[in-house]
C-alpha cells in the first residue's frame, strides 16, 4: 500500500462510493443478471452476496499483483482463469457446507465467473492500482452489490411469500386473518426488474446528479 494510511479519506471513498454514487448495479450497470435471478428469497441473496465478496476482493488483489505482467491482448482470458479458479473454490465450499442453498442457486454460482461486476472492476480498477487499494475497491463494490441484492430480496420475499429469511413474519403479525393475501406476482421474474427499476427511480430522484439525458 502507498504512503497514506488505511483509513485515509481517499481510501474511505473507495469503500463508500460504490454504496450510492457509484453503485455497481444501479449506476455502473454491472452484475445485473445474478442480482435479478436469485432475489426471490433473502437467504440465497445473502449467500450470493458473500460469494461475490470473496471472489471479487481476492480476484482484485491477485490481478492487481500481476498487473504489470499481463499482456493487454489476452487480459480477458487471464481474468477469466483467475476468476474461474476462485469460483470453483467457492462452489465446492458451498456444496460442502450449505448444500440446499447451493442447489437453489444452481447455475448462478457458476455464473459469478461471467458476472460483469468482477470483470468490470478488474478491467477498470485492479489493472491500474496497487493491491491494497484494489482490495478496498473490491470490498466496496461487493458491499454496493450486496446491498441492492438484499433490498430487492427483502421486498420480494416479504411481499411475495410473506416471510423473511424463511421466518413467516406476516403470519405471526396475523395479517392473514385480516384478509391479506400474498402477492404471487412478486415471485415471478419480471417483478425483479420492476423492483430494481423502482429502486433506481428512488435513488435518482434523491441524487439528481445521476439523472441521464434521455
Amino acid at each position, binding site marked *: 500500500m502507498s504512503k497514506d494510511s488505511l483509513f485515509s479519506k481517499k481510501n474511505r471513498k473507495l469503500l463508500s462510493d460504490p454504496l450510492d454514487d457509484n453503485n455497481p448495479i444501479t449506476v455502473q*450497470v454491472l*452484475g445485473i443478471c*445474478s442480482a435479478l435471478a436469485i432475489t426471490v428469497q433473502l437467504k440465497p441473496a445473502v449467500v450470493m452476496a458473500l460469494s461475490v465478496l470473496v471472489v471479487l476482493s481476492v480476484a482484485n488483489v491477485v490481478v492487481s499483483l500481476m498487473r504489470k505482467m499481463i499482456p493487454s491482448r489476452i487480459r480477458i482470458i487471464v481474468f477469466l*482463469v483467475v476468476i474461474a*479458479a476462485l469460483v470453483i473454490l467457492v462452489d465446492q465450499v458451498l456444496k460442502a457446507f450449505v448444500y440446499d442453498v447451493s442447489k437453489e442457486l444452481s447455475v448462478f454460482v*457458476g455464473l459469478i465467473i461471467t458476472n460483469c461486476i468482477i470483470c468490470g472492476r478488474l478491467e477498470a480498477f485492479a489493472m491500474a492500482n496497487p493491491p491494497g487499494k484494489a482490495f478496498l475497491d473490491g470490498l466496496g463494490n461487493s458491499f454496493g452489490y450486496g446491498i441492492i441484492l438484499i433490498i430487492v430480496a427483502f421486498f420480494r420475499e416479504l411481499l411475495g411469500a410473506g416471510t423473511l429469511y424463511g421466518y413467516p413474519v406476516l403470519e405471526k403479525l396475523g395479517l392473514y386473518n385480516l384478509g391479506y393475501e400474498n402477492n404471487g406476482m412478486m415471485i415471478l421474474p419480471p417483478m425483479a426488474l420492476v423492483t430494481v427499476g423502482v429502486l433506481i427511480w428512488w435513488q435518482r430522484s434523491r441524487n439528481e446528479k445521476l439523472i441521464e439525458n434521455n
Partner: protein
Amino acid sequence: MEELANIFIKSIFIDNMVFAYFLGMCSYLAISKTVRTSVGMGAAVIFVLGITIPFNYLLEKWVLKEGALVWISDDFLNIDLSFLSFIMFIAVIASMVQLVEMVIEKFSPTLYSSLGIFLPLIAVNCAILGGSLFMQERDYSTIIEATVFGLGSGVGWFLAIVGIAAIREKIRYSNVPPALRGLGITYIITGLMGIAFMSFMGIKL
C-alpha cells in the same frame, strides 16, 4: 424432428434467456440504445452460442462427465471431472470469442467499431456461459439437440434485445419522469416485456 422443433421453440419463447433467467442483462442494457447495434450484437450472440454449445457438449460428454474418460482406458471409470467444467467452458468460450472478434474486425470494420468494447465482453456475457451450464444441467441426449438449444437461446436473446432497442428508440420522444430516464425505464419496460413473454408458458409442447 418434432423433438428438435420443440427444443427450439421452447428455448426461444418459454425459457427465454433474458426474460426467464435474466442472462446477458448487462450487454442487453448497455447496447440496446439503437436497433442497428443491437442487431449486430444479437447476431454475434447467436453465432457464439451456436458454436460454443456443441463444443462444450463434446467436452462434457467425452472428458468431464463421470465415467466419460472410459474411452481411454477402463481404469478411468470412476473419474468425475465435472468440477472443472466452469474453467473448461469459459476457456472454450473466451477463445471462440477472440476468433469471432478477429473475423468481424477483418470483414466488417463498421460493425466492429460500432460494437466497440462490447465484443470482448461477449466472453463475459452470462448468456453464453449460462447456455453451456444449462446444456450440462438439462443433459441433452445428442449433439444436434444441444446445438438446436444453443441456436434457439441465441434467437431468443436476439429477439429480446432488438425488441427493447426498438422501444427505446421510440421512448426518446416521450416525456419520462427525469429520475426514471435511461436505465430505470428500461428496467421497467423489460419487466413488462417479461410479463408478456410469460403468456407463452401456457403452451404445451
